[in-house]
């Protein structure tokens, strides 16, 4: 009896491969409308949810079909899921890569099928993409440093600041801290601590506690992302101080929690990126590429288009 089952299984196996071979020819996408594929970094983050909403809306407005895949913060999922996307017969690929360095196989696969590749933020990994839309991380850090200098000088506090970094593998986000530290040192400040909060909110809280212990006279903190900045602001208020007037906390992203934290008077400012608009913009760029137009780059050599970053404080906070 068991042998029969094995034979059946073997037969099924052979059958499915035969079918696979036969079915291979017929399935090309022939529908009239164009399809945009978007491969997103990780939908767990508010930033990428906003970016996805912008991309989706842009695609809908232009009358495209739209397919989304999630890289779930894993580089091999990034490659396999994006290849899944390409194999579904999309006409243009938009990708916000979890690891830009692993874009190579994706861009090669897309080029092989003549699909244009629009990279949305993070980085291009030195590949042959068509265009990258990028908010200037380094410049955002510099902006934060300048604002912090204004705040600290006005309050007449000691020129000592700290810098909280993301997880070590997020090398592109790390440029925010590099920009911040370079500018603030130039302005004559001492960076008393550079510690990683692993991009996690609760780690931002812990690291800030330790920074406060080691340097009670620290007067400003820059954080690589908003969750850690909010965590740090909470640590400061648990120590009986304020992250908006005693020790100035500046974050990055303008996530909802950061805006709420600024409104609540727990935190001084955040550097805003505009993920929703970036999403819409990438669809427009994809349209131009599909229509064979040449793009107007900000930096032609690296095919970059810069998106401005803004400083959000209590004065200009959006509702």
């Amino acid at each position, binding site marked *: 009896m068991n042998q029969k089952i094995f034979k059946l299984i073997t037969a099924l196996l052979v059958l499915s491969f035969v079918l696979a071979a036969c079915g291979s020819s017929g399935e090309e996408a022939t529908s009239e409308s164009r399809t945009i594929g978007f491969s997103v970094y990780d*939908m767990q983050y508010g930033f990428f949810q906003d970016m996805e909403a912008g991309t989706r809306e842009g695609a809908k407005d232009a009358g495209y079909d739209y397919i989304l895949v999630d890289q779930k913060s894993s580089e*091999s999922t990034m490659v396999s899921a994006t290849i*899944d996307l390409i*194999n*579904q017969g999309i006409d243009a690929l938009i990708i916000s890569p979890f*690891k830009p360095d*692993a874009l*190579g196989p994706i861009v090669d696969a897309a080029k092989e099928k003549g699909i244009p590749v629009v990279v949305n933020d993070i980085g291009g990994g030195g590949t042959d993409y068509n265009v990258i839309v990028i908010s200037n991380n380094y410049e955002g850090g510099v902006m934060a440093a300048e604002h912090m200098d204004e705040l600290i000088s006005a309050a007449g506090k000691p020129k000592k600041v700290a810098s909280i970094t993301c997880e070590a593998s997020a090398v592109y986000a*790390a440029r925010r801290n590099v920009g911040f530290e370079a500018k603030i040192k130039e302005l004559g400040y001492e960076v008393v601590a550079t510690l990683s909060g692993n991009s996690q909110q609760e780690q931002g809280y812990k690291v800030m506690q330790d920074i406060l212990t080691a340097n009670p006279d620290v007067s400003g903190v820059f954080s690589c992302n908003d969750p850690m900045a909010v965590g740090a602001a909470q640590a400061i208020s648990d120590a009986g101080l304020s992250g908006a007037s005693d020790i100035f906390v500046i974050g990055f992203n303008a996530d909802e929690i950061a805006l709420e934290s600024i409104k609540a008077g727990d935190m001084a400012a955040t550097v805003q990126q505009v993920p929703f608009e970036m999403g819409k913009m990438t669809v427009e760029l994809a349209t131009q590429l599909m229509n064979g137009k040449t793009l107007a780059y900000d930096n032609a050599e690296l095919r970059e288009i810069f998106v401005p970053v803004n400083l959000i404080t209590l004065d200009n906070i959006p509702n």
Partner: protein
Amino acid sequence: MTVAEKQIKKFSVKLGWDLLWERYGIATVVLIAWVIAFFFVPNFRNPDNMLNVIRQSAFVGCAAVGMTIAIISGTFDLSVGSTLALSAYLGLMVVSTTESVLLAILVTVLVAMLIGLINGLLITKVGISAFITTLGMSFIVRGLSYIISKGGEPVRYNAKAFIWWGNGSFLRIPIPFIIFIICALAGWFILKKTPFGRYVFSIGTNEKAAKVAGVPVQRTIIFIFIIVGLFTGISAFLIGSRLYSAGPGLEPGFELSVIAAVVLGGTRLAGGRGSILGTIAACLLYATMGNILNLLHADAFVQRVAVGMILLLALSIEGIRQRIFEHSSRRITTLEIEPNSNEYQGGQA
């Protein structure tokens, strides 16, 4: 006589089913999934897509072959994720500076084997349990790779001769899949055709009895961890080549995917039982599941729940079947051997 014969026959049928499920259960599930997806999931039957699925299965697969051997022996290795990152990163460093693919393969595999050797020595000579040794090693190795990289920046390299290993094909069959099958055949050969393989099974079944029977337990365990390193190194090289790059933060959680694949393939965490075929099927199932969910445009949050549920479901089939069997055959309990001995295994390494 006749009663005994009847009982023996019943018993052998039960054993047959047990083994059948263990060996071919997941393979059947994969086949059914493929057949259904072939007809009902849009774009699945696109040959590029199917080839991508089997390519994808190979990256976890090679490491899973080594892990199968470890788990059959009753140990396991939580350091394979960190080992993967460090060895892939060093391999990329070598290939990008020397441009020698052969040297990169050697470095990647040897580094991974070295970590395996250290694991094996710590477990046998110092006497720390495999779980703790490899957990501790995973922290140490991950930390080391960040320290070596001085900040986490990955290394990129995209010369054809190198990326072919992860992205190329031979007669349309993806190279990584071919290597996976070769690894699986090697694993099968080691387990079934060598004295070492017999030692692995006997240690997994009963370590004390194996020792009494003259199995060189310590040497075998050291060897097992070196073999785990070898296969992890192969995975590391393939992933590095597939991604054209590797960094110290490569693939966090890889060890859990590998262990989950092996267990899904029917290998018992308690040791003593398991098969390479099951592991191959489980790796294919994993890749297929992810692919189908993507092709059906399933929501990313729902995907997580679905993958967990499918895993649980597949793993509980055997338990449910056992319960039903026990229920319907209370009378022949005299001949029941060890169906319960495997419950509640917390991975007692």
